[in-house]
């Protein structure tokens, strides 16, 4: 990876934090005026590829020379906007861009089928805006700037979700619902940031962190904390603020679901970690109490209650959407544990969950391209109709359950170890119960795919199809990653451990 940094011009490396956000944002404008969807798609893939390269460069840079602080426009922080990259958000950048690239490659066949031809350019433009927004949230070190990027990504997401209306009119209500709730979340967040600005007189997060401990008895700061946690929790689909999510995932275009499920809530989770540790400080009484009572308790409730909800879904994507909320509960539990091990486990699950849900949603999308599936019963016999996609789906499903030989096992293993170290044996019990429920709902889908009778055509032969290569390749890259990182976990573990240490380093500041 060092190699990449060495061949890029020094100018680009120096300004990489800005370029990584600006490239997709500019390309969005270009994409919008492209005459057809294919050209826009090419732009998307190129800008995603560029951002992957830059993310790798930034990650290497952080690993070798520590925190990068980039003054936007040359205005020095805290007055100017600071982009700040440490090991914590480097993971996010890497995940966002790699998943972004894979899902961008995957997008073409799916979008070609589900979006009107004359809207495809605009669709891709909206996607690029969303992509840039998420990168911005991950990279910025300025609280108000974070709000701006959060809204850039959210508003474009509402559009993307609503684009599903061509296939299913319920996408419109889903998007509207998401818009209302997402805006409430954003409002809460900006109110919180406003309070903090009022109390500290700064918007730079590092600067806030330095000034806040003197104000620990301030009611304004405490209220700000509550507003921010609720606002970001809503964006992260933290139980019980997740009500927007199932429909938004179920009715939006398949490609949007893939991208949303693997990135958007992940970024929101990152912002929670960032605010908990690097803006507020865990020693404050009102912060300390939230670890257990907010994150651990709600996380566990989500892990169990929402998993049970998932069991009773009939719509395949809704099932996985509920599962996503439940899986977010695992991350919340990791955050709630609050130790380095806990945060590291939460971050590990964040990455792993993106890999496993990526495969699952992508495979569902591939099924949909060929057979237009919606319900679980539509998946009957796909093991023989679309074997390659089905095997990948199965790997993703097993990973979600946490079966050894898949990366999902490490998520649960390290979460369990972290919980044990805290003496939270009941959390381990909850982990196991939740895995059992996951087994049930994934088992329902796998049973449909592998056991039920496949569809037959008029001659009585089994209907077979192969997913387009552009879909199959990203699906299989992710599926193999799910297995590969079980046997070679070093990379992910060192990355997420560094992330957790970086998060807790803020505490020392």
């Amino acid at each position: 990876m060092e190699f990449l940094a060495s061949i890029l011009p020094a100018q680009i490396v120096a300004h990489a934090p800005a370029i990584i956000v600006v490239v997709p944002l500019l390309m969005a404008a270009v994409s919008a005026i492209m005459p057809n969807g294919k050209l826009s798609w090419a732009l998307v893939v190129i800008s995603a590829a560029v951002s992957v390269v830059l993310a790798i460069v930034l990650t290497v840079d952080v690993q070798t020379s520590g925190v990068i602080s980039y003054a936007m426009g040359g205005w020095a922080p805290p007055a100017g906007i600071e982009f700040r990259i440490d090991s914590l958000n480097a993971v996010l950048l890497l995940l966002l861009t790699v998943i972004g690239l894979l899902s961008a490659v995957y997008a073409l066949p799916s979008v070609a089928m589900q979006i009107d031809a004359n809207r495809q350019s605009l669709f891709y433009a909206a996607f690029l805006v969303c992509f840039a927004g998420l990168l911005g949230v991950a990279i910025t070190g300025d609280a108000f700037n974070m709000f701006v990027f959060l809204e850039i990504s959210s508003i474009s997401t509402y559009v993307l979700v609503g684009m599903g209306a061509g296939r299913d009119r319920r996408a419109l209500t889903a998007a509207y619902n998401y818009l209302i709730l997402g805006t409430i979340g954003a409002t809460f967040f900006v109110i919180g940031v406003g309070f903090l600005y009022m109390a500290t007189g700064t918007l730079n997060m590092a600067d806030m962190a330095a000034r806040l401990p003197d104000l620990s008895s301030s009611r304004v700061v405490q209220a700000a904390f509550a507003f921010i946690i609720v606002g970001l929790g809503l964006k992260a689909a933290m139980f019980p603020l997740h009500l927007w999510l199932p429909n938004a995932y179920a009715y939006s275009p398949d490609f949007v679901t893939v991208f949303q499920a693997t990135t958007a809530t992940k970024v929101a989770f990152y912002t929670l970690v960032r605010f908990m540790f690097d803006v507020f400080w865990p020693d404050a009484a009102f912060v300390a109490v939230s670890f257990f009572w907010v994150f651990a308790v709600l996380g566990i409730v989500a892990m169990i209650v929402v998993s049970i909800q998932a069991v009773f879904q009939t719509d395949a994507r809704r099932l996985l959407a509920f599962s996503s909320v439940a899986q977010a509960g695992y991350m919340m539990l990791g955050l709630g544990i609050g130790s380095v091990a806990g945060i590291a486990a939460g971050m590990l699950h964040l990455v792993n969950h993106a890999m496993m849900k990526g495969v699952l949603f992508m495979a569902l999308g591939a099924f949909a391209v060929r057979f237009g599936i919606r319900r679980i019963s539509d998946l009957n016999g796909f093991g023989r109709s679309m074997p390659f996609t089905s095997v990948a789906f199965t790997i993703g499903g097993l990973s979600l359950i946490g079966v050894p030989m898949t990366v999902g096992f490490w998520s649960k293993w390290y979460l369990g170890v972290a919980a044990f170290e805290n003496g939270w044996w009941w959390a381990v019990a909850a982990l196991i119960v939740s895995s059992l429920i996951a087994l049930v709902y994934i088992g329902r889908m796998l049973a449909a795919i592998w056991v039920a009778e496949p569809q037959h055509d008029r001659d009585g032969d089994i209907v077979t199809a192969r997913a387009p290569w552009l879909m199959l390749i990203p699906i299989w890259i992710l599926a193999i990653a799910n297995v590969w990182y079980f046997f070679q976990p070093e990379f992910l573990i060192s990355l997420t451990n560094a992330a957790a240490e970086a998060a807790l380093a803020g505490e020392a500041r």
Partner: protein
Amino acid sequence: MMWSPEIALLAALIIPVIGGVFVGLLGKTPNLREGATLVASVLLALNVAYLVSVTGDRPELIYEIGSTGLAFGLKLEPLGALFAAVASGLWIVNSLYSIGYMRGNNEKNQTRFFVFFTIAIAAAMGVALSSNLLTMFLFYEALTLSTYPLVAHKGDAKSSRGAAIYLSILLGTSIGFLLPAIIATQYIAGSTDFTVGGLLNGEASPMVASVLLVLFIFGIGKAALMPVHPWLPNAMVAPTPVSALLHAVAVVKAGVFAVLKVSTYIFGPELIAAAPASDWLAWIAALSIVAASIIAMSSNNLKRRLAFSTVSQLSYVTIGAMIAAPLALLGAALQIVMHAWAKITLFMCAGAIYTASKKTEISDMRGLGRLMPWTFGAFAVGAFSIIGLPPFGGMWPKLYLMMGAASTGQLALIGALILSSILNVGYLLPIPGRGFFDPAPKEGLKKPGPMLAVLPPVITAAGATILFFLIGPLTDFLAPVFGVEL
């Protein structure tokens, strides 16, 4: 020499899988396909025979997963070698039998059947050769999942319901109890390796060990200790070759083998003796033996009767593991071997009877022995062995179990074992008895069924007899594990 013990360890897993690939590829030409199964089974048996011969060296293959402290590993030790030998040896006989049965009954989806069979055997080999709990858990689950399509083979409502119960109990207990126990073991001992003398011995207090022991014994649902046994009678919806090899040998024996291995290598006899739970578990096993025998006696369906008989006989192993005296452990290990040969005989006979006459109920089988003398003869031999009469192999485990119970003074358990033998007489012997001594049915059966369905049980019945005389080499082979002086 080219063939090293390490390669052979891997080969034991790979040979059946490759066989399965060929079976799948040759699905269009049934004769070649069956040829692939037979070649794979013979190669595997040869390979395992080689492994048995090098067991003394304790070869091992370990793959450490990064810095996570976990590892996958294969390691050869006498118990595992014995289980692998039993499963692979009987696979040959059972393959012959499967061919006869599946063709004789015109079953559908035969290719799928034979493919999953090979995967199940590979998983059983994995359970036999695992060097730590994590690896064993993985193969244990693989065994459950690969046998699910075999149980659900018929595809009708009854078999999918049976298969659902099968899957949910086995997966539920293993993830709900076994996995937490493994995690706790890793947490307490820092590893899950099978260690001579017991990994947890000296690491865990008797109270903690008790909790873990309960989790392990009930978590290993394949051992079918009551009340987690219902999966076994429900699995009887499967075609009989599945019931024969998997639910008399590979799957259930993987369960009790795991129980035995956990008791010997994870807890160790000393810790089990110190843990208060072991007494209770021995009693539950004794109850399980008697209760299952009584249920067996009351069922008229032959396969169901045999299934409950299996539940009962499996608890012999659990009892031996819980008594934890060297002789009892030896008896438990021998029970795995002896019961396998006897019970597969009985199941194959049941299938042969079904293939020839389509009869499943015991009350309909009167006088059939006159028309199918070989089948009923083999059944009688199997029944004698299960009851524990000399000169049949089944005598030895009962003897050693009783001696073991006597050595720790648990005389009441001896009573349970004797009672069980009496019950065995009551529910097994009437079948060949009525078969031979009642008048032959007037109509129906014309010939005693296909050769390939009749011959295999005769072979295994002969095996059950020969094993009686092989007790010397067997105990010599196992003695170092348990430190038995004979």
